[in-house]
């Protein structure tokens, strides 16, 4: 009985560990993201349009006004080689959560641009969370200006 028991146990372990490998989707480290940011060394393209869209607290949805602003921007965005979308938050709430929220906001803009025909490949999404406020005061006006996605063309 005993050797069979051990064999069964071993089989179970093996099956289990295989399953774990698949469902965990163990990912190898790759060196990709930072190397992709070399365009930052080049000069930004100048544009006359407002390069920021704004958001509500703890929200990442674009309203009609934001969308029409982005639409005006489209011809220039389509001409650019790289479109950098930098998401930002106000200082309220926690820093790491805000980092994720800023990314959410930039992704919302990316998705809109992609729907409008901009190639997703040339869009770079970055979040600075609450780390780079435009205004350092602690009031509604400053917070509203800080909750933004900045669009830079290269």
């Amino acid at each position, binding site marked *: 009985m005993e050797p069979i028991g051990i064999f069964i146990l071993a089989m179970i372990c093996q099956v289990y560990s295989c399953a774990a490998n698949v469902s965990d989707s163990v990912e190898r480290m790759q060196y990709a993201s930072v190397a992709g940011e070399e365009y930052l060394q080049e000069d930004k393209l100048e544009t006359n349009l407002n390069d920021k869209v704004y958001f509500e607290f703890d929200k990442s949805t674009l309203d009609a006004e934001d969308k029409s602003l982005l639409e005006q921007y489209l011809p220039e965005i389509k001409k650019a080689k790289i479109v950098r979308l930098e998401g930002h938050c106000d200082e309220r709430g926690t820093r790491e959560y805000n980092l994720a929220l800023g*990314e959410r906001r930039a992704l919302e803009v990316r998705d809109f641009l992609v729907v409008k025909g901009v190639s997703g490949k040339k869009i770079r999404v*970055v979040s600075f969370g609450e780390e780079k406020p435009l205004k350092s005061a602690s009031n509604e006006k400053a917070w509203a200006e800080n909750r933004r996605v900045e669009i830079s063309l290269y």
Partner: protein
Amino acid sequence: MIRFSSLLFFLVSNSIFSILEIEILKGSDNLSKVAFVPFGLESGIEENYGSEISKNIENNMLLFGEFENLAVNEMLSYPSSENDFYYRDWKVLGVDYSLIGKVNSVNALGNLNISYSLFNINRRIKILEGEIVGSEDNIEGISKIISNRIYEEITGLRGIFDTKLAYVINSDAETYQMCISDIDGKNEQILFTSKAPIMSPDWSPDRKKIAYVSFENGLAEIFIQDLQSGERDSIQALGMTNSAPVWSPDGKSLALVVSFSGNPDIFLYSINNKRLIRLTNHYGIDTEPSWSPDSKKIIFTSDRSGSPQLYEINTKSKRKKRLTKDGNYNARGRYFPDGKSIFFVHGNDGNFQIATKKLSSRYIETLTSTSLDESPTISPNGNIIIYATKDGLNGYLGGITLDGKSRFSLPVKNGSVREPAWSPLLN
């Protein structure tokens, strides 16, 4: 790849400027009163190490506002040995504990032999007696060891006077510094200076390394810096944003957040074989992981319910449990050292404050009363929380003892200080 592991200058600014200095804001009326009697000197010892040591101990013990002292000039006697010690001299002055001591000898190598005794005046007994040998170049270190012993004897908690604090200083829009200092603000070291933001420092359990996030290459990137050599290594993950690194209690892995194609989830990163193992997989934001002291669970913030709330996940079974329900913002949770309670940032009516909750109870207790409080970190003995807050345009650190006896602040002389991280104890 060499680009990512460059050796940076390791600036040490010993005693050039001590940036943090603790100011007690509110002490309780019924603090224990301790008399730190200037230590005596055996005849023939020239340097006055005695008063230096007792003064250091006094400064340490008063650091967080947990005790009250008796001024030296109010003392009726200055005993340095038990034979000269009379309880009535201290009882009449309302003293609860008296510390006396003596520097017995200094040898040719500069080693001091120091003896000390601590008395409980109300119970009229000697509660601690010790002897220590240490170098005359390390008076601060000797004083910290004695401070820890008497703190432990009086409070029953581990002494924390040889712990350190990591923090980020933002002196202007273009200058960010990753710093560490002794817990009293002394011996500040600048580990790294950057033009881009730095965030989320966390100590390795052996206190030899710090992990943090730096934006120096234009996006959030996790670095591990060796404190001895100053060498920095980047953890390159595949995602767009890599953030919130926290060391496992055994120091072998980090829990961290990687956002693959824009969806932040919690991963475990094994430092030796550089592998990532996924822990959460949800389209919502999952971030701010932290380990339970027994390393079986990880607490994290998720907005999967529609607002940021705290959850814990068992790292083996991956079973998840929601920990907070009250309010629409509960984030960046950490476990207490005993693993039975958590502390976190609680949003309430537009105010963000530091709160605690027993895991066994529903009730959330708010500890702070300012409105932009964040990044709480706890002393290894579980008795003190330091957090970041803001006054006007400048960020400073606030602190509170969990017994409610004291509140204090650690202002910075210029710019803002944020992201405090309390070091573990050196076993």
